[in-house]
């Protein structure tokens, strides 16, 4: 049996083979594994002329991309009728475990009547490039309460879509910094510019905030209610459901949708919180000690997810953490808050 027909292992979402040898794999979701493969092809000097692929889910968009990348044989766990017809029209050998009429997603709706591969490709690329972070500029910023300065930042520049880890000892002002960014308290001096505008002019829901959670509560709240908290109320019900569904899928938390949030493990809660921020289309993510109270497996899953989201969603990310393993694994730029005479 050729390798592309064998089951995908662990949390792999895409395997690509050339002459039955594995050349690429991805753990991302939606169409991002295929975009990652496109980058892989663009950066590779080798020629691949006998490509085969095993993907988890295939709609028309995925089918079009596979045709574009000259993949000759495909195997899907789940495929839509439209995708199968498109692939077969291009003489691509198509295998699947399960077939449905149509995938329940907007991307599938968008291309329902489209058959031109290049048109589908251009439109997908446009949709992908919509998600971007915002640049953050901090200059001579003093933070504190009641005119008492706790900490002063000289300068921090975070480009759009970039990430920064902030570390510092207990009591140095990390929480105060978060409160200042969230506009709970005003800066004492200096300025914070987001997308070159003062922070007090920021549009609501630009910042997605994820804090550490210490305790469960007695009264329930469903995962769907948590994820949809920041959703745009002007969307139709179908659009809202699509957005909730996609956000949870991107964070590999779709199975949790009907669960009580407080019955989830620490790692599951963090996935749902990330999905909440995606659903509100946050351009900036602030994570406060995201790995506190997580076991090793959950921590590793979170790290993978953060890396994947940074690539695919490209928000600007700020993480406040003590966790040295997290710093090491993410390998992002770090700013250390230090006492003046340290």
């Amino acid at each position, binding site marked *: 049996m050729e390798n592309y027909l064998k089951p995908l292992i662990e949390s792999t979402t895409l395997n690509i083979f050339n002459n039955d040898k594995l050349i690429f794999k991805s753990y991302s979701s939606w169409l991002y594994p295929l975009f990652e493969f496109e980058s892989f092809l663009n950066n590779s000097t080798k020629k691949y002329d006998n490509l085969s692929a095993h993907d988890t889910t295939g709609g028309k968009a995925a089918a079009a991309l596979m045709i574009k990348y000259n993949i000759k044989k495909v195997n899907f766990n789940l495929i839509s009728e439209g995708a199968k017809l498109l692939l077969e029209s291009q003489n691509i050998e198509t295998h699947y475990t399960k077939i449905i009429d149509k995938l329940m997603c907007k991307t599938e709706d968008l291309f329902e009547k489209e058959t031109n591969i290049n048109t589908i490709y251009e439109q997908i690329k446009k949709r992908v490039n919509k998600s971007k972070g915002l640049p953050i500029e901090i200059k001579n910023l003093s933070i504190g309460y009641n005119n008492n300065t706790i900490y002063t930042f000289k300068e921090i520049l975070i480009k759009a879509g970039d990430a920064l880890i902030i570390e510092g000892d207990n009591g140095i002002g990390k929480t105060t910094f978060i409160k200042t960014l*969230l*506009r*709970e308290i005003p800066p004492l001096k200096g300025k914070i510019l987001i997308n070159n505008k003062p922070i007090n002019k920021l*549009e*609501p*829901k630009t*910042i*997605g*905030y994820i*804090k550490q959670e210490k305790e469960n509560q*007695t*009264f*329930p*709240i*469903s995962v*769907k*209610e*948590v994820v*949809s*908290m*920041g*959703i745009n*109320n002007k969307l139709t019900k179908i659009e809202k459901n699509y957005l909730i569904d996609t956000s949870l899928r991107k964070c590999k938390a779709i199975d949790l949708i*009907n*669960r*009580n949030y407080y019955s989830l493990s620490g790692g599951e809660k963090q996935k749902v919180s990330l999905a909440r921020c995606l659903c*509100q289309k946050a351009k900036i993510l602030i994570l406060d000690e995201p790995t506190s109270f997580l076991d090793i497996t959950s921590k590793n899953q979170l790290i993978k997810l953060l890396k994947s989201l940074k690539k695919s969603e490209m928000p600007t990310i700020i993480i406040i953490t003590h966790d040295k393993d997290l710093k090491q694994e993410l390998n992002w730029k770090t700013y250390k808050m230090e006492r003046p005479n340290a």
Partner: protein
Amino acid sequence: MLSLLSLAPILKAFIALIFSGITFPLCGVMVLRLDLVPLRYALMHGVILGGAIALAIDISPLAIIILVNLFIVFLIIKIPSSNSFSSAAAMVFSMGLASLLIHTFNVPSKDSLQLLWGSPFALSYLDIAILSILTIIVINFLIFNFKKVTAIFFDKSIAKSLGINVNYYYNFMIVIIALCVALAMRLIGALLIDSLLILPVLIASRLSKGTKSLFLLSSAFGLLLSLSGFFTTLYLDLPLSATIALIAVFIYSIISILKYLKKRKHHD
């Protein structure tokens, strides 16, 4: 028994219990999710003080009770820190002053006891009208602001980061709770307010998986309790508030036992 509904006091109590059964548990969800249990105690004691003032000067109690409760809410909002200490001080003050007034103005004990146990069959049409308006306000508020309320219940910092004016909605909910407690005193008395305010929510919380279902089930159980209490009262000639309270505890116990047995079976 149903022929008793042709009597105005019985009919008024019936209508009031329908509104209160639906509305009081919705306020109870706010009390519990916003962790306002100390405030609730303060308001219950405020209700006794308001009732004592009204009895002392011989006027209809509802307006005074509402004013006293709104004043307590105003004080607690203005002194946000040490919320539980403020509430404790308010409680002690309220009870002390109420006791003094009842003694000084020779309020008959029957009338004083009505403050504690309620007087559902002595409601006026004004009481019913105010209760129905509160019901409409609470239901509309929750329907149109459900996501914001859910976010505030979930986490106030996160709600603020979503651009929600948390203080505005929080203060609005406190005022609604104050009005609800004031009205509950008239119906079921200061001591047993929890039978329609809190217990339906506790019952519902055993069965729901989200905030929406918590609100809906709390309201449904509230209505069930108020109507079952009403008809049991009529049939067996028992005091209404006590009957509702005992039925509520009975249902809560049954559901808790069933949940426990289900959990044990799952572990086995």
